[in-house]
Structures are given as C-alpha cells and as structure tokens.
C-alpha cells in the first residue's frame, strides 16, 4: 500500500479498492469493544434484574437462601402493593381453607390464605405515583419553558450584568438541598403550601431552573445568530424567528435538558419527605416508608420500585435519538 503512494500504480488499476472495507484488526477491536460494553451493561443491570425478579416472587422465594434464580412467578407482590390489608380473623382463614379444598379460590383469596391477611381496601400507591407524574411532569415543563426564554435572552440580548446574573443563577445550586429543607418547611407551613401540588411543582421548577438555563444557554449559543437575522430580513418578527428557526435547531438540547430536569424531580426524596404528607406525597418517600410497616414485604417494595422506574424509562426511550446528540453538549454540530 505504501509503495503505491510513493510510486503510483505501475500498471492499470483494474480492481476497485474499497475504502469502506474494515481491516480484520479493526474488526477484532470493534468486537472486543462490543463485548466489554455488553458485560458492563449486564453488570449495571443486575440490580434491576434482581428487583424485577423479586417483584414476582412469593414471600418464601424472596427470603430463601441461597436466592432462587428459577421460581414460579406470582403476583403476590403486586397485590400487596395495590392493597391495604389487615390480619384475617381465624374463622375467615378456616373458611378459606375449606374453600381451597373444593378448589375455587380467587387470586385475592389465595393471597389472603397464604399470608393470613385480608384485603381491606386499595393502597395509596397509585395516588402517589400519580402525584409524582403530575409534579415531576409539570415542573419539568415549566423549568424547560422558562429556562428556554431566559437562556435565549442571555444568549442573544445585551443583558446588563449578564455574567454576574448567570453566576447568581448557578450559585443557587451550590447549597446542598438538604440545608434549606427546614427553612423551606417553615416557609411552606406559613404560606399554606405544605403538602400541596402547587408547592411541590413550584419548588422543583425553581430548583431545576438554574440547570435548565445553563444547559439551554449552551445549546442556544451554538446556534449561529445569522439564521435568525436571515429570518428577520426575510420578513419575520423575532418571536416568529425564534419559533421557526431556533426551536427546531435547539430541540436536541431541549430534550436533554427536559430529561435531566425530569429525572431530578422524579427521584427527589428529601424535600418530598419534609414538605408533603398525604395529598401531594410523591412516590419516593412513600416507597421508602413501606419498609417501616410491620413485616417487610420485599416483593411489594420491588413491585413498587418497578412501577416507579417505568415512566422515566419510557420517556428516555422516546427521546433517545435527541439525547444521543444532546448530551454531547453540542460537541457534534448539526
């Protein structure tokens, strides 16, 4: 090959040299890299695998040592998760046992018989998960929309004291969140915002805003201003230019920012524990408190965590194409 470059072809070139052919060595490297990635991914996914398995195990399988890998799946954990139960009176157990001999027991009856507990009503899990969806979802929307406008202004207009303001916005992140929970708790009490959806949405919006402004400003700075100027000259107002020109180009950045905000609001534990008790309580503190109730229902906790995982996984999956480009922070242009 190197001879070729030095001397040129000594006879007519009759066969094509494919530049897209990968050399065996490069292909081997590629395979090795792929294997390493797969192994790492499996290692990372082990906790999730264990959690998923646990969610479908019966009480006996959960606590067995060594852990059972192959087991008969059961929905017991999910029944526990979605219901409130009380210790069943002995008479009821006896009746169930008799019914079991004749062979027609419903799923709920079977769970009651196995655990000695009787279902008394629905649990609050669905309500908590709904709270999480509302609070995390809306606060993400607000943080991204407000952040987008602020970032655009900081990026495009000669805002007085721009650098100081940007630093100020960043500085709101420097205090550990836990430090401000007590003052916030007192403020929210006084303002009547304790345990309200509005209060939590406001809190997460404000908390995410700094991240959102900084991330989005970076993305908007990357978009050359000439595009908007061209649109202005072409007969559009600044708002129309923003909508038609800036938004489509900022979409990857917006998606990445939204995911970061959503994950923060979705996972947030400390504020939620302090500032909510019932109406606006989100999933993270409620799953944690399941640990504290009587006997630990590991399968129910695992089932609850699984349900908690799904919405974020779905969002990230839907936005994956934007994210791949977005999280490189504009290192790759267009």
């Amino acid at each position, binding site marked *: 090959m190197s001879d070729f470059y030095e001397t040129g072809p000594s006879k007519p070139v009759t066969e094509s040299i494919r530049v897209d052919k990968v050399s065996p060595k490069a292909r081997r490297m590629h395979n090795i890299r792929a294997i390493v990635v797969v192994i790492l991914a499996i290692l990372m996914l082990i906790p999730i695998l264990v959690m998923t398995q646990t969610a479908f195990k019966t009480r006996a399988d959960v606590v067995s040592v060594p852990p059972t890998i192959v087991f008969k799946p059961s929905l017991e954990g999910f029944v526990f998760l979605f219901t409130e139960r009380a210790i069943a009176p002995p008479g009821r157990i006896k009746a169930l046992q008799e019914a079991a001999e004749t062979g027609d027991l419903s799923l709920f009856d079977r769970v009651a018989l196995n655990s000695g507990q009787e279902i008394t009503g629905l649990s609050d899990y669905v309500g908590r998960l709904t709270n999480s969806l509302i609070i995390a979802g809306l606060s993400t929307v607000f943080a991204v929309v407000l952040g987008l406008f602020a970032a655009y202004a900081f990026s495009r207009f000669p805002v007085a004291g721009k650098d100081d303001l940007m630093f100020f916005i960043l500085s709101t992140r420097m205090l550990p969140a836990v430090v401000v929970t007590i003052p916030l708790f007192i403020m929210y009490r006084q303002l009547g915002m304790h345990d309200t959806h509005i209060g939590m949405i406001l809190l997460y919006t404000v908390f995410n805003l700094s991240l959102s402004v900084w991330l989005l400003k970076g993305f908007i700075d990357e978009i050359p201003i000439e595009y908007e100027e*061209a649109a202005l000259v072409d*007969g559009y*107002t600044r708002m129309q230019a923003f909508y038609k020109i800036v938004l489509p180009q900022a979409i990857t950045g917006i998606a990445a920012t939204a995911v970061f905000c959503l994950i923060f609001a979705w996972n947030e534990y400390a504020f939620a524990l302090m500032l909510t008790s019932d109406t606006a309580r989100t999933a993270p503190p409620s799953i944690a408190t399941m640990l504290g109730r009587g006997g630990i229902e590991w399968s129910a906790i695992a089932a609850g965590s699984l349900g908690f995982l799904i919405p974020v996984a779905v969002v990230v999956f839907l936005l994956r194409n934007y994210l791949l480009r977005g999280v490189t922070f504009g290192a790759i242009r267009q």
Partner: protein
Amino acid sequence: MSSVELQHITKKFRTVTALNDVSFTVKNREFFVLLGPTGAGKTTTLRIIAALLHQDSGSVLFDGESVDDWTPADRDVAFVFQQYSLYPTMTVYDNLAFPLRSPMRKTPGPEIKEKVQRAAEILHIGHLLDRKTANLSGGEMQRVAIGRAIVREPRIFLMDEPLSNLDAKLRESLRVELQHMQKTQGNTTLFVTHDQIEALTMADRIGVLNEGRIVQVGTPNDIYDRPATTFVAQLVGSPRINLFDARVEDSQLWLVGSKISVPCPTDRTMPATVQVGIRPEDIQPDPKGKFSGEVILTEPLGVETILHIRSGEQVLTSLIPGISSMRLHDTVHFNILRDRLHYFDDSGKRIGQ
C-alpha cells in the same frame, strides 16, 4: 427596486469605531461594490442598511425617505450572508419559499411554487429542491442563498462576500451569472468584497472602504486610473502598483534609492517630497529604453509575465504581454509611461486631477 443613501453613518463597538462618517448612495438599478480589506466595516455597513444593527449617528434613506425607525422586515431588503445563511433543518425548497411564506407577505401557495421554480431555474438548482441543505456543496449552498434573495422583489440586494468561500473556478462562473442576472433584471445591488478583481469586473461603481471611512467612490476606471490615495492605488491592480518615495530636484523627480528620474510635472504644484506610483503595465521593456536594470525574478503567467527589475536599491515590477525571453541577471532597458504616473503627497493623498 429603490435607491439607498447613507448619510454620515457612524457606528462604534465599545472602543472600536467600525464606521466613521460614511456617506454614499447606491442609485436605483445600480450594481455598487463596496471594496475593502477585512475589518474595514463592510459587513457592519450592510447590517445597518438591513436594520440588523442600529447606527450611532447618521441616517439611512430609501428613495429619499428616512427608514431609521423601520424594522428589518419593514425595510424589505434581501441579504446574502457570508456564511451560515441556509436553515439547516429545512429542505432547499423550504429555504427558498421561506421569505415568501412570511406572515407579512402572505403569498398564495401556487404563487410561491411558481416563484421558487423560477428562481431555481435561473440558478440551476431545480434538481436540488428536495434535498436537505446540510449536505449541499459550498457552491450549491451559495446558489440557494442567492436564490432565497431573488424569489421576491426586495428594494435592494445586499450581498456580503457571497463568493469568497468558493473555489476559484466556481467563483468565476457564479460571478458571471450574478452579473448577468443583475444586468437583465436591473436589481439595485450592494455587493461587498475584499477581492479587487470582483470589484473591477462587476461594479457599475465602487466605494472603497478603509478602517471605517469611505476613501473613494467612483467607476472602476476612476478607481484604477485615478486612485485617490496610496491605499486605493495599492488595493486595486494585480500585481501591485510600484510605489516609491521621490525627491524634487532641479525640476526632476528622483526615485529615492534608484537611478531613475523623471521630469517633474508642470501642471500641478509638487511638494519637495512625494510618492510616485507606477502601474506595472506602464513599465515597458524597450531595447532603446531610457532606464536600465537587472532582472532578478520572472513570473511567467501564460498570457503575461511579471518581471522584477532591480535599479539601485529599488525593485520595480513590470507586467509585459506574453511569455518573456528575459533571463535572470539579464540587463533590461525599459521606458516608463510618464503621463500615466500617479503622484501622492506624504499623507498619501493624490496630487492633482
């Protein structure tokens, strides 16, 4: 189409004065070229006309009417940017249709289609209409950018070095097309460039801009034959004009550091020290020539040859037609066309005419 007039425009960016009392008029249907080196303030001038920037003082007039309070959309100009002008998320068709779809213009659908087709035809980009702009070549991109300007009838075309990012061959062909288009459609055009050849070949009139000031406005002939300053003289013409310090002694002009002297012109008053400019084509080898020197370099270009001739401590460049038979270190005799000499005073201003 409109005439556009700038009156005493000044623009500062903090400490930098980008434009300093700039005044000139682009007449209706004229091809006006603003020529100047990088950083002269050319882009700033265009941006002020398009209202993307606001001047610190002075006025912009369209057809004699002040447009200082008008927004970019109101001014209805077409701007071809130096770079980054195509919307990367849209197809070529959508890029061309974008100005027509502006809520301000409300062009009906069939008309948009017709106008885009026509512009695409003029610029030979009909086959590209469905492509995304990201994977076009540089030449194609610039064609689309020009196309976006010609789909509508703006009051003036502002073009910011539209050809400077293209390779030489493409630049030449697009230059001819642009010129043809402007002449057949009679568009008022303000074309910005740092390339003197573009300016000389395309312009009806040229305005020379240097460090934020208009140095000279005139036809290509004016600019080339009667440069107002040494700056203009050196900016236009390739190879560059020969410029020498000279002393007046006994009604002779002596070029400092050489054995060359010419009679002092009598039709104008000359200070004791001047600068003399001689275009390379006005130094003509001739066996019976009055002056002589040594050939120290030849640059054959095919149709012509550049000779570098040493006389004393000075080196003159001479441009002669065809391939020269001169060889290195030959002694060459030459004449200087006296009535084509340019005289400048110490500050660089032209003396006389």
